[in-house]
C-alpha cells in the first residue's frame, strides 16, 4: 500500500497527532492539531503525486532523447550528440529552444479551442500514472476499475487531436484530424476487446490483481491479445507503421501544422510520453508487472526494466516498418484484428469454463491454456491473413498479363 512507502510515512507521521496504533507512527506528536487528523494522508499523498509526476515527465523528456539517438543508430547515423555528454541534454536544449520561439496563432483559428487542445492532449497521459502498480505494494491508487480507467482516459486523446485539427482552420490539419478520428476509433475496438481475455482470467479490473494473477506472464497465456494490443497501441499513438495521421509527405504534419513553440512541445511530449505509458500498461497486463526471476533486485526496478524494453521495442518497430496506406490501416483493424480479438475472447472463455475452479487457476492449468492459445493464435493469424490477402486483391493486382 501507499502507506508503506518511506517518504509517505515520514511526512504522514510528521503531521499526524492521533492514536499511534492506527497510523503506525512511533511517537504521535505531530505538527497539526488533532481536529485536522484527516489531512496528513492527503498532504503526504499530494507530495507523492508531485514527485511521481515529475519523475514521469523527466522520463518522458529522456525518452525523446533515447528515441532520436536509437533511431539514428538504426539508420546508420549518429543522432543528437552535441548538447552535454553523449547529447543527453538534448531534451533541455529542445525545451529552451521551443520556449523562445514565437507562437503564431492563425487569424481564422478558433482561439479557445486552439489553446485547449494541447492541454487536453497532455492530461490523460499524466493521469494514467495514477493507476499503474509500479512495484510490489508501490502504487498511488488501487482502484477496482483501474483497467477501465486507463483505457477510457487515454481515449480522450482522440478528442484533443480532433480539436487541434479542427480549430486551426487549416485544410491539411482538418484532413489529418478526420483520419485520426477514423483510425483511433477503429483501433480502440480491438485493443479494448483484447483486454477482455485478461479480465476473464483474473476476474478483476484492478491492475494489482492482474499482476498478482500472473503465475506465468500473460504474454504466453494470451499471445493473440498481446499481439493485438501492441499493434493497436502503436496505431493509437500514431507511430510509424500507422502514422497516416501525421504523414509528413502527404499532410505536412497532420493535426499540429499550425502549432509552434510551447504548444508544439506539449503535443510532442504527450506523444512520446504515451509510448512510455503504453509500455507500462503492456508490462502490467502481459509481462507480469513488477515480478521478476531474482528477488534481490527490487520490484520497481523489474517494472522499469520491462517498461524500457517495451519502449525499445516500439522504437524498433518504428525504425523497421514503412508506413501503410490509409485503406490498409483501416481494413487491418476491421478485417484482421477485430475477428481475431473476438476469437481470443471465446477461446479464453471456454478455457476458463473447463479449467477454472471459482475463477482461479493452478500454474499447470495456465501452461496448458497457453499451449492451446499459442496454437489457436497461429492458426487464426494464418487464416485471417489469407482472408485479408484475398480480400485486398493483392494476388490479382500485380498479375503480369502477356
Amino acid at each position, binding site marked *: 500500500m501507499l502507506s508503506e512507502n518511506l517518504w509517505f510515512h515520514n511526512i504522514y507521521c510528521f503531521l499526524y497527532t492521533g492514536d499511534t496504533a492506527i497510523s503506525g507512527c512511533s511517537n504521535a506528536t505531530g505538527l497539526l492539531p488533532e481536529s485536522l487528523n484527516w489531512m496528513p494522508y492527503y498532504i503526504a499523498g499530494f507530495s507523492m503525486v508531485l514527485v511521481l509526476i515529475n519523475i514521469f515527465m523527466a522520463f518522458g523528456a529522456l525518452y525523446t532523447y533515447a528515441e532520436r539517438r536509437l533511431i539514428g543508430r538504426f539508420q546508420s547515423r549518429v543522432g543528437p550528440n552535441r548538447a552535454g555528454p553523449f547529447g543527453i541534454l538534448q531534451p533541455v536544449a529542445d525545451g529552451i529552444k521551443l*520556449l523562445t520561439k514565437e507562437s503564431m496563432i492563425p487569424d481564422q483559428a478558433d482561439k479557445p479551442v486552439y489553446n485547449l487542445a494541447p492541454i487536453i492532449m497532455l*492530461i490523460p497521459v499524466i493521469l494514467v500514472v495514477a493507476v499503474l502498480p509500479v512495484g510490489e505494494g508501490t502504487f498511488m491508487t488501487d482502484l477496482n476499475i483501474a483497467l477501465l480507467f486507463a483505457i477510457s482516459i487515454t481515449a480522450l486523446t482522440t478528442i484533443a487531436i480532433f480539436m487541434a485539427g479542427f480549430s486551426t482552420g487549416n485544410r491539411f490539419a482538418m484532413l489529418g484530424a478526420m483520419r485520426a478520428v477514423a483510425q483511433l*476509433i477503429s483501433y480502440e475496438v480491438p485493443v479494448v476487446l483484447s483486454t477482455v481475455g485478461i479480465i476473464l482470467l483474473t476476474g478483476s479490473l484492478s491492475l494489482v490483481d492482474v499482476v498478482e494473477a500472473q503465475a506465468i506472464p500473460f504474454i504466453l497465456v494470451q499471445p493473440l491479445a498481446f499481439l493485438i494490443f501492441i499493434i493497436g497501441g502503436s496505431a493509437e499513438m500514431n507511430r510509424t507503421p500507422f502514422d497516416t495521421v501525421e504523414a509528413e509527405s502527404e499532410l505536412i504534419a497532420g493535426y499540429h501544422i499550425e502549432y509552434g513553440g510551447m504548444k508544439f512541445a506539449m503535443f510532442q511530449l504527450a506523444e512520446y510520453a504515451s509510448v512510455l505509458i503504453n509500455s507500462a500498461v503492456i508490462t502490467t497486463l502481459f509481462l507480469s508487472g513488477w515480478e521478476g526471476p531474482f528477488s534481490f533486485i527490487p520490484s520497481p526496478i523489474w517494472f522499469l526494466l520491462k517498461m524500457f524494453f517495451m519502449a525499445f521495442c516500439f522504437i524498433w518497430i518504428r525504425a523497421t516498418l514503412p508506413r501503410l496506406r490509409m485503406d490498409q490501416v483501416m481494413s487491418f483493424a476491421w478485417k484482421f484484428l477485430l475477428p481475431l480479438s473476438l476469437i481470443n475472447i471465446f477461446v479464453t472463455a471456454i478455457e476458463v469454463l473447463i479449467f477454472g475452479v471459482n475463477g482461479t487457476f493452478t500454474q499447470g492449468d495456465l501452461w496448458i491454456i497457453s499451449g492451446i492459445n499459442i496454437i489457436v493464435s497461429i492458426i487464426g493469424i494464418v487464416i485471417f491473413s489469407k482472408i485479408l490477402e484475398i480480400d485486398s486483391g493483392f494476388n490479382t493486382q500485380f498479375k503480369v498479363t502477356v
Partner: protein
Amino acid sequence: MENYFHQYGLLAMFVIVATAVPIGMLVVSYLASKVSIRPHKPNQTKSTIYECGVEPIGPNKWVQFDFKYYMYALLFVIFDIETIFLFPWAIQFGKLGMFALVEMFIFVMILLVGLIYAWKVKALEWGK
C-alpha cells in the same frame, strides 16, 4: 469507506496536478513573451494558415471529406457498446458459467452479422 475516499482523494489530486502541469507550461510560455524572452511580432502574412507556401484560396475553414468516415463511426458505436457489455460479463464469468457463454456468443454473433454485411457491401473499403 475511508479506503474509498483515500483512493479517489488521491485520484482527484492527480487530476488537479495533471491539469495544472500543461496549464503551467502555457503560462510559462506566455510570461516568456512578457519579459521578451520570446518574440511576439504578428503580421498579416504570418497569421495566414500554412499551405505549402502558396497563398490559401477560397473559404478556408472547411474541407470536403469522404462519406466513409460515417460508416466507421457507425460501426464503432455498435462495437463499442459490445465492449461495454463484455466488461461486466468478463468479470462475473467465473460465477455465471455456461449460460453466460452461450448468451454472449449469441449477442456477439448478432453483431458479427452486421460486420459481415458491412464487409460484403464494401462499407469497409476505403478507396472503392
